[in-house]
């Protein structure tokens, strides 16, 4: 596949991510921060996110498995997760976290468990998408092209 085609594919894929709501404007901001001094900024941040999220999700699951759920801790974790996801622009994850927090306030265990599943699901989805995206980018760079500058207007 030649570079132009790959680039076009990349653009379409990115657009679809936005349209489907996986990513929001914050992700664009991250992309803007990527420059010569920081060529892998986005990848680094996203990797960091993945690490953090794994940890957080584990903590969450464990916390909810406790016989008496410490909602404060759960809330704290969810808060963290929300913060991270919003920092990189993972919109659906963030929304799931917001819903999660409501249940935490209500101290609704059933709700929380359901939410945790939801959050996990969203997270894995977005992780998948992002990994695909990065793979595409690597391919383009390997083929000698450059990542196109995203100009999205809806």
């Amino acid at each position, binding site marked *: 596949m030649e570079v132009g085609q790959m680039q076009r594919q990349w653009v379409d894929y990115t657009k679809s991510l936005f349209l489907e709501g996986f990513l929001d404007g914050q992700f664009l901001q991250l992309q*803007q921060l990527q420059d010569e001094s920081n060529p892998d900024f986005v990848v680094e*941040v996203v990797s960091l996110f993945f690490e953090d999220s794994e940890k957080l999700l584990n903590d969450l699951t464990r916390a909810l498995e406790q016989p008496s759920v410490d909602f404060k801790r759960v809330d704290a974790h969810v808060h963290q997760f929300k913060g991270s996801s919003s920092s990189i622009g993972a919109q659906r994850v963030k929304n799931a976290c917001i819903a999660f927090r409501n249940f935490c306030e209500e101290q609704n265990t059933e709700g929380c468990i359901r939410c945790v599943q939801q959050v996990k699901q969203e997270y894995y989805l977005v992780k998948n998408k992002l990994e695909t995206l990065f793979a595409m980018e690597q391919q383009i760079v390997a083929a000698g092209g450059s990542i196109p*500058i995203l100009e999205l207007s809806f």
Partner: protein
Amino acid sequence: MEACNCIEPQWPADELLMKYQYISDFFIALAYFSIPLELIYFVKKSAVFPYRWVLVQFGAFIVLCGATHLINLWTFSMHSRTVAIVMTTAKVLTAVVSCATALMLVHIIPDLLSVKTRELFLKNKAAELDREMGLIRTQEETGRHVRMLTHEIRSTLDRHTILKTTLVELGRTLALEECALWMPTRTGLELQLSYTLRQQNPVGYTVPIHLPVINQVFSSNRALKISPNSPVARMRPLAGKHMPGEVVAVRVPLLHLSNFQINDWPELSTKRYALMVLMLPSDSARQWHVHELELVEVVADQVAVALSHAAILEESMRARDLLMEQNIALDLARREAETAIRARNDFLAVMNHEMRTPMHAIIALSSLLQETELTPEQRLMVETILKSSHLLATLINDVLDLSRLEDGSLQLEIATFNLHSVFREVHNLIKPVASVKKLSVSLNLAADLPVQAIGDEKRLMQIVLNVVGNAVKFSKEGSISITAFVAKSESLRDFRAPEFFPVQSDNHFYLRVQVKDSGSGINPQDIPKLFTKFAQTQSIATRNSGGSGLGLAICKRFVNLMEGHIWIESEGPGKGCTAIFIVKLGFAERSNESKLPFVTKVQANHVQTNFPGLKVLVMDDNGVSRSVTKGLLGHLGCDVTTVSSIDEFLHVISQEHKVVFMDVCMPGIDGYELAVRIHEKFTKRHERPVLVALTGNIDKMTKENCMRVGMDGVILKPVSVDKMRSVLSELLEHRVLFEAM
């Protein structure tokens, strides 16, 4: 005549007698024959003679009589039988005709007599017509005279000329000896001799107005004969034997402008009359004729009209002169006013600079002084100086602003600004003051209130601050609520603002702000005075408060400049009051805060590093957030240090860090307490870094806490590059930033 049938003479013919009879008969016959001839001749001469056949009859009768007598001539001598027969025939015929004529005359003569009567009647009629002709001619003459007189009188608009002309013409037309006009004096109690015909300069004779003869003349509109001995007629010294001529007097109404009502004809209800006296020549035995009197009456009326015209003209000339004078005076006054305004503007321009320079020095140096080491008393003093000079500066600005506003030389600085942040800033500025007085301030921004708007942000904030400040100032307890929303067209037409006619358009919207307080309230009668300069309602509560009373006046002018309206409603003292204003603002372009990604023309590597080398400290326990924020700030050229705990923070923080971003929602870490400790550590303002809270929480509690602990700003995560850039510039410029929600 005897018909003699004798053939022979009976007695011896008396020759003489015979001769005489012969001659007489002859002459009779002659006469008898000539009469018809004469009749025929004269009848032929006259054109009209109705009874021709009577004439014929008569003629026949006479002819026959003549014939009889003629034939008689032959009977005196011996005559033949033929002559006798002829004679007999003639006589018989004569008899017949004469009888017929006699019978006819019985019919004819009454007719002839009536003709005579008719003739007499016609003659009388002719005489009468002659008389009337004479009369008409006289009247026509009179009319001609009047026309001529009127023409003379009306040909001038000068009062004196009119009167003089009248007298002269009257004198000439009527061949008067003397003609005079008596005018009422100013007091109205006397008549003064004003004009005469013969005497050139009438000496000021006066006559009291209430003489019976004068009253008599005044009460009738006819010319009345008066006695030559009455005081008004005695104008010339009587020359002894002379028999004074008849005198006639007539009133001349002096019509006044006010008599001419719009829908009324001038009533002769005016009591002012002049008296015209006319004297026939003495010893002339002339009498006043009716037509002459009529002439005089008509002339008097005409004179009245002419005089009133002259009076009106004089009046209008006077009015015009007056107007011209007034015009000149007004012009002068206007020029003076313009000069005064220019002088004032010059003065203000100079004072502006002159007043502000020392003011600036005082404020600057006092604030610098504040930063130095001071004892508590000294600090108090310096703070008081600073506060007072701030007040003074505000006052100076207000006064200068107001005069510029009055001039109309003030112009709004239109730009796009964040409408929500204006209200929040006001809210935050007023909260400390309000909380000292234990007042609660609530801010309600409508959901449809645009975030961005186009208008004069500074002035709008001034208005809101002033209004809210007043609400706080005049409330001792209770609550103050500020509501802001977009005014829909029904609510725009408030019956309390009847002169306000807002026009809806697509580019503008009307912002309506209501500030309600539960304070001392205002008497509804005082409400209009509130907006006048330098006026303050007198009440104990206000006497202690500062302010020059200019605030609301300035607000009103700003509001008017923004094509809006401001008013205050209050139900009375003690019932609180509500200040409402509506201003026109423009819709801004859609802001950057949309849900979907938007056009980012910014190229990835094309960003300015606005803040080279700016030392920033970021505290956040969330690794991802931390790195994102660090990347962000690094991108803007800052020198970023990140920490994730308080100890680390306190270890690292130093004077070099200009800005500190800390996440205040870190569990287990009280960001607020940290802020307090920072304040304690850096007592001096210029050493302390700008403290900004980064939070994902957007509720009031967070904001209030941040403000309470003395944070300089609150920002909502996640932050975009542009936002961070503007935040940094704002912070470094103003040292304060409270983000709109």
